[in-house]
């Protein structure tokens, strides 16, 4: 089986002695939508930097779409698109020229490149800005420009490092739809994000990296299945009179309660208890992102190890 990304025993120790990666293994299947999560400094960007040829590994093997990074770097680069965390284009160049240059670096002729540039700039709502200098764009537009640039050679694997950092909610949703569309067309996507809601909504598989080691690598469903309890907040009619009970109900404010749903319990039982106290439930929501709870649990365990 050819993986979109296969990493074996990858290590990276920087010149100052900091071991950013301590021998990680990772496999991402073709067509997957994969999240690499971890706290700041965990090794996410180092991993993606090595795959993107921006960081030299200390040891280990990396292959992208079956091509070995050490011996077939050109082929790796041709099947890979990269959207880095930091803006890394010339701010004084025009939007159109930035994407056109990238197409040129991949050896696309003008006749091949121009329709693609138009296609991706239009899809990412940048066509009207094509003659603007990059520095004139808003933060969200700059991120979309980097996505258009990374897609112009139509890579098989797209890596996005914090693609929606600093992007407003509405635009973030639009970008999610765009990425889901790209993924549905066959492009494997790997992203890092601090918005765990993003990983939960988009990704089928998730790896969590902490202190340079992979502490979890499984499907999003399995990962969420590790949750032993979920805390919910309910908005009710009238003043909350219920505390304790089977679900340890706690008053949040004059119209809200929160309770813990343990693994094996069902929500209907909680609603029944509320109904017995004549509380009508107006709305219910998880108190925190469910993935966030697993994430915090795994990362804190790794920190203590």
């Amino acid at each position, binding site marked *: 089986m050819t993986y979109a990304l296969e990493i074996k025993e990858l290590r990276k120790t920087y010149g100052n002695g900091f071991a950013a990666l301590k021998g990680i293994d990772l496999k991402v299947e073709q067509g997957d939508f994969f999240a690499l999560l971890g706290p700041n400094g965990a090794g996410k960007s180092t991993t993606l930097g090595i795959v993107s040829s921006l960081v030299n590994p200390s040891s280990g093997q990396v292959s992208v779409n079956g091509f070995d990074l050490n011996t077939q770097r050109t082929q790796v*680069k041709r099947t890979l698109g990269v959207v880095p965390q930091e803006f890394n*284009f010339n701010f004084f160049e025009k939007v159109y020229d930035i994407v056109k240059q990238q197409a040129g670096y*991949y*050896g696309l002729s003008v006749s091949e490149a121009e329709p693609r540039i138009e296609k991706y700039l239009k899809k990412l709502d940048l066509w009207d800005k094509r003659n603007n200098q990059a520095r004139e764009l808003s933060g969200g537009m700059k991120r979309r420009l980097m996505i258009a640039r990374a897609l112009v050679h139509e890579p098989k694997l797209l890596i996005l490092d914090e693609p929606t950092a600093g992007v407003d909610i509405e635009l973030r949703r639009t970008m999610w739809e765009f990425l889901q569309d790209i993924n549905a067309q066959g492009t494997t996507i790997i992203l890092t994000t601090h918005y765990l809601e993003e990983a939960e909504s988009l990704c089928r598989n998730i790896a969590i990296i902490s202190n340079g080691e992979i502490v979890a690598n499984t499907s999003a469903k399995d990962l969420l299945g590790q949750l032993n309890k979920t805390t919910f907040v309910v908005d009710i009619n009238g003043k909350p009179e219920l505390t304790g009970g089977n679900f340890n109900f706690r008053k949040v404010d004059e119209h809200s309660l929160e309770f813990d749903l343990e693994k094996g319990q069902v929500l209907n039982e909680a609603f029944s208890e509320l109904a017995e106290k004549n509380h009508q439930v107006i709305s219910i929501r998880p108190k925190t992102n469910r993935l966030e709870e697993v994430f915090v649990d795994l990362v804190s365990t790794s920190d203590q190890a």
Partner: protein
Amino acid sequence: MTEYQNKSYSNSVATNWIAFYTIVEKEIRRFLRIWAQTLLPPAITMVLYFIIFGNLIGSRIGEMDGYDYMAFIVPGLIMMSVITNAYGNVSSSFYSNKFQRSVEELMVAPVPNWVILWGYVAGGVARGLFVGLIVTLLSLYFTSLQVHNLFVIVTMITFTAIVFSLGGFINAVYATKFDDVSIIPTFVLTPLTYLGGVFYSISLLPDFWQHVSMANPILYMVNAFRYGILGVSDINIWFAYGMILVFMAALTGWCLYLLNKGVGLRS
């Protein structure tokens, strides 16, 4: 054999050529866009040289190596502008790309290192020759130029631009702040150029200083170029060719070593 290995993902002559052309076009567009910083200053500086050293002071100096002083200094001044602009173009452009991280666009793309290097060098040569042409045209207002040997003129000015573009590239690779790209031009290139026979024939110097001057590579380039225009030189021009080709080969090797190692580019 993977699904993707059935399709060619290798570079070809055509893809390398497109990548090279893209870098050169970007570099030329850059120095034309900021012409007030790149093209205008050397034009003004050289006109001042022509007026002050050529006309005002030169008229009192008389002849140098059998030519009036203005005609003698013009080849050196053209060469001086080519050297500083070829060097400055590559050092400032490549360092700016590092500083803004836009160099990563090239590093993630399948562009061979030699294509990256020669793309930037070609951009430096283009600016050096463009400025050289401007200075040459301006000089025609002050003196008439002859062509003694067109082959020597064209090859020497192009080779010199290549050598100093390569030098500018090395400077940019090692630079970690903007100050670092101005240190070499200020403290090395300018003194060597002024002492490289731009304004005088080294035959005017005492023996000791003549020998010291022979260690200055710019002396050979200026004199060989002057030979192409006027037919006079303090040095053997074939030796100048040999030396400049050795410099080109050595600097190219150095640049490719730095790029392959990722010095200043990859952590």
